[in-house]
C-alpha cells in the first residue's frame, strides 16, 4: 500500500468481534483490516499496536458494510456478501466461508450493497442495495427469502425493529419505508438534497438524516419530535445512553441531547466521517471508533476527546 493509496483511502465500515477484542474495518479498496483493541489499549502499547494485525482483500469493490453475527463476520462488496469466521481471522487464517449474491434483475450491471443489518428474530440478514430493493437472506439456509420493493432510487441504509419485525430503509429518493410501505418525506434541506443516508432505530424511536437535517422521530405516531441543528449531512448516528452520537460531514463527532440540542462536537482526525461504532461486546474495551475519509480510525476511550488512532 503506497503512500498515495493511503492518502486516498476511505474507511466505510466497521465491526467489532464477538469477544470485543478486535475491530474489523473495511475500506474503499475492498480490504478488511483487523485491529487488536486489547493491544492498542494496553499500558505498553506502541505505535505498532495501532497497526492492523491482519489485512486482506475481501472484495473487488469497496466494503461498504460489515456485520458480525454468530462468530462470523459478514462483509458486503460489489454486489455480493461474504462470510468469514472470526476465530479463523484472529488466527490469521483468511478463508471465506461462503459468498452469496442476491438475484439482480440484470446481470450486466451489478449494483453495490450499501448497507446490511441483522434481524436476530429469524436469523436473517437484511441487505439494502443499489438496485433499489431490500433483499432478505436467510442465514441458516443461505437462501434469499424475499425482496422488498418500493424505493425509486438506491437504498442507502437499512435498520430493523426486531420486536415488531419491521424493516426500515432509507434511500436516495428521500423516502423512509417501513416494510416497504412508504412513510413521509420530511425536514428538507434543499441545498443538500433529499437523500436519506443514515437511519437507526431504538425501539420506538428513529433517527434519520442525510440531505435533510438529522431528526428524531416517534415511530408509533410517525411524527418528528426534534431536529438537530448540525451543519453538513450526517452519515451515521447512534443512540448511546441518553445521548445521540452522529458523524458525517465535518471532522467531529457530534453529541446531541434528545431534546434537539447539540451538546458538544469533539474534533477528530479524518476530515469527514462515514462510520461510527460503539463496542458493546466488551466492557474493558468499550470504546467508540470512527472512520472516514482517511486511513486513520479514531479511538475514543472517553467520549469527549480522541485518545489515539488506529491506521491501516
Amino acid at each position: 500500500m503506497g503512500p498515495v493509496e493511503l492518502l486516498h483511502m476511505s474507511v466505510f465500515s466497521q465491526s467489532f468481534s464477538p469477544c470485543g477484542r478486535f475491530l474489523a474495518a473495511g475500506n474503499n479498496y475492498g480490504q478488511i483490516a483487523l485491529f487488536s483493541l486489547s493491544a492498542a489499549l494496553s499500558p505498553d502499547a506502541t505505535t505498532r499496536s495501532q497497526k492492523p494485525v491482519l489485512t486482506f482483500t475481501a472484495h473487488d469493490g469497496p466494503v461498504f458494510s460489515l456485520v458480525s453475527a454468530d462468530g462470523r463476520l459478514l462483509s458486503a462488496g460489489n454486489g455480493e456478501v461474504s462470510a468469514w469466521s472470526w476465530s479463523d481471522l484472529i488466527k490469521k487464517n483468511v478463508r471465506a466461508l461462503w459468498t452469496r449474491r442476491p438475484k439482480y434483475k440484470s446481470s450486466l450491471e451489478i449494483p453495490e450493497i450499501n448497507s446490511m443489518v441483522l434481524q436476530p428474530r429469524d436469523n436473517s440478514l437484511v441487505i439494502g442495495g443499489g438496485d433499489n430493493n431490500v433483499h432478505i437472506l436467510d442465514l441458516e439456509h443461505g437462501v434469499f427469502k424475499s425482496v422488498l420493493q418500493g424505493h425509486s432510487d438506491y437504498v442507502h441504509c437499512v435498520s430493523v425493529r426486531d420486536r415488531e419485525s419491521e424493516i426500515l430503509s432509507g434511500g436516495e429518493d428521500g423516502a423512509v419505508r417501513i416494510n416497504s410501505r412508504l412513510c413521509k418525506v420530511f425536514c428538507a434541506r434543499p441545498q443538500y438534497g433529499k437523500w436519506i443516508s443514515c437511519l437507526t432505530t431504538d425501539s420506538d424511536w428513529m433517527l434519520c438524516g442525510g440531505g435533510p437535517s438529522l431528526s428524531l422521530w416517534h415511530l408509533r405516531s410517525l411524527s418528528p419530535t426534534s431536529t438537530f441543528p448540525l451543519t453538513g449531512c450526517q452519515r451515521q448516528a447512534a443512540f448511546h445512553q441518553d445521548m445521540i452520537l452522529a458523524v458525517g460531514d465535518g471532522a467531529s463527532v457530534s453529541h446531541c441531547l434528545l431534546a434537539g440540542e447539540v451538546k458538544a462536537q469533539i474534533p477528530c482526525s479524518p476530515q469527514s466521517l462515514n462510520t461510527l461504532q460503539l463496542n458493546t461486546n466488551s466492557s474493558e474495551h468499550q470504546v467508540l471508533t470512527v472512520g472516514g475519509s482517511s486511513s486513520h480510525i479514531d479511538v475514543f476511550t472517553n467520549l469527549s476527546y480522541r485518545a489515539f488512532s488506529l491506521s491501516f
Partner: protein
Amino acid sequence: TEKKTTLDQALRGVLGDQIVSTLLTAIILTPFILLGRTTLTRLSTCADLLRRLSKSQNTVFCGRIQLFLARLFPLSEKSGLNLQSQFNLENITVFNKNEQESTFGQKPAEEKEDGMEVEEGEMGEDDNPAPCSIPIDYNLYRKFWTLQDYFRNPVQCYDKFSWMTFLKFSDETLAVFKSYKLDDMQASKRKLEELRASGGEHVYFAKFLTSEKLMDLQLSDSNFRRHILLQYLILFQYLKGQVKFKSSSCLLNDDQTTWIEETTKLVYQLLKEIPPDGDKFGTMLEHILNTEENWNTWKNEGCPSFVKESDELTRLWNLNQDNMEACRSESREFMPSLDEFFAEAIEQADPANMVEAEYKVVRNPNYGWRALRLLSRRSPHFFQPTNQKFKSLADYLDSMVSKLAKELPDIPSEEIKTGEEDDDDNGDNLLKDSNDSDKIVTNQQMDDIAAKLGAQWKTLASHLEMKAAELREIETDSEDVEMQAKLLLVAWQDREGSQATVENLVTALTAAGFSELADNLNEA
C-alpha cells in the same frame, strides 16, 4: 488500628490547635524585642514538630505551624524569606510508569507508594487480580503526569530536550482540555447545591491522586482543571520573569517565548470556559499573578524594608514636639495692624484724592469681610451701639474708616464728610451727656407742632409708642386738643430724655402721615 489512627489524629488536631493558639496569643501580645531567647526555643519546637509530622496527613496542623512561624518574624527578616527563589524539589508526583506498577492485580506484599490511590477491593482479596472494567488511555495518563515534574522543577525547561518533551506533552494535554469541554451546567449546579446544603467542607488533597482509573473523572472536574491550568500560568511567569538568582544560562529563545505567549492565551481561554464563573476566576487569577510580580521585584532588590526613613521628615518633626505650642508662637501671628490694613481705605476716603465710589476698596466684599474681622479684633468702635442704619457693608466701612482716620496718627484725615461726624457724635451719646440743643426738640417746636396737630395728636401718639394709659391721662388732664397734643409731646420728651431728638420726632411724624409737619421741623 484504623480507629486508633483516627483517635490519634483527632487528639493531635485538638492539641495542635490549642498549642498553636496559645503560642500565637502570647506572641501577638509580646513586643518583638522582648522575645529574645524564648523565640529560639519556640523556633526549635516548631521545627521539630514540622519534622515529625507528615505533611500529607496532618496538613492543617503543619500549615498552622508554618503560619505561626511566618507571624513570628518581621517581613524583612531574611531568614524567613526564600531569597534564592528555590523550589521544593522534594515534591515528586508518583504515577504508574509501566505495567508492573499498575495497581491492577497488585499483590498485598508490594509497598504502597505515597499519594497513590489503591482500591481496597483489589488488595489481596482475590488471588486472581480483577481485570480493569474500563478502557484506560495510558498514553494521555503518562504524558499528563509527567508534566508535574516540570512544574516541580521549572529549571528543567531551559534544557533543550526536556523542553521539547514538555512542549509535546503540553500541547497534547491542552488539546484534550480544549476538546473536552466542561459544560454540563445542570448537573454541576445540582451538585453545588447539594454540597452547600450539606455544609460541605472544602476538600483538600496535599498531593495529586494519580491512579489511572481516576483520570476520566479528573478530566471532568472543574477544580482539577483549574489546578493544572494555574500551574501552567505560574510556570510561565517564572520562566519569563527576571529572577536575580537564575543562572545566566536560564534564558528563553524566541521560539520558546512565542510558544509561551500563545499557550498563555490558550490557558486563559480554557480557564474562562470552565464553569462556574470562569470569567471571574480568570480575571482574578490574572490580577493575583500581576501582584506576584511586585513581590518578585521586591526580592530582586534584596527585600528592602518597608519602613521608610527620611531625614527631611525627621527634621520637620523635630522642629517643635508640641503642635499646639508651635501654633501659639509669635511668628505665627499674621493679623495686621489697623493702620496697615486701612491705610488704603483712608486714603481713598479723602475727597481730595477724588476716588470714585465704585473703585473704593471698601466695596470689595473680600476686603470688607477681612475689615470686619480685623475691627472685631482690634477696634473698640466695632462694639459701640449705634442707631444709624447702614444700607450696605461698604457704607458701614466708610463710617468706620473715617473714625479710624481721626484716631490714627499717620494718615491725614482733615476733610472727611461732616455727616459722619454727626453720626459719630450720635454714637458717642451714650458715653457722654448730650448738650447739643440742635438735637433735642425745643419747647417752641413742640408748641408749634401741638398747634398744628390739634385733635390728630392721637394718631401721632401710636407712632411715639405711648401707652393707652398715658393717653387716657392726657385726655383727663385737659380738654383742649392743643393742650392735649402739647401734653403728649411733653410726655414723650420726658420719657425719651436725651433721645427726644428732632430726628426721632421727624421720623414719627412722617410715619404718622404728617409729612408737612416733619419737613417744617426739619428745616427749623
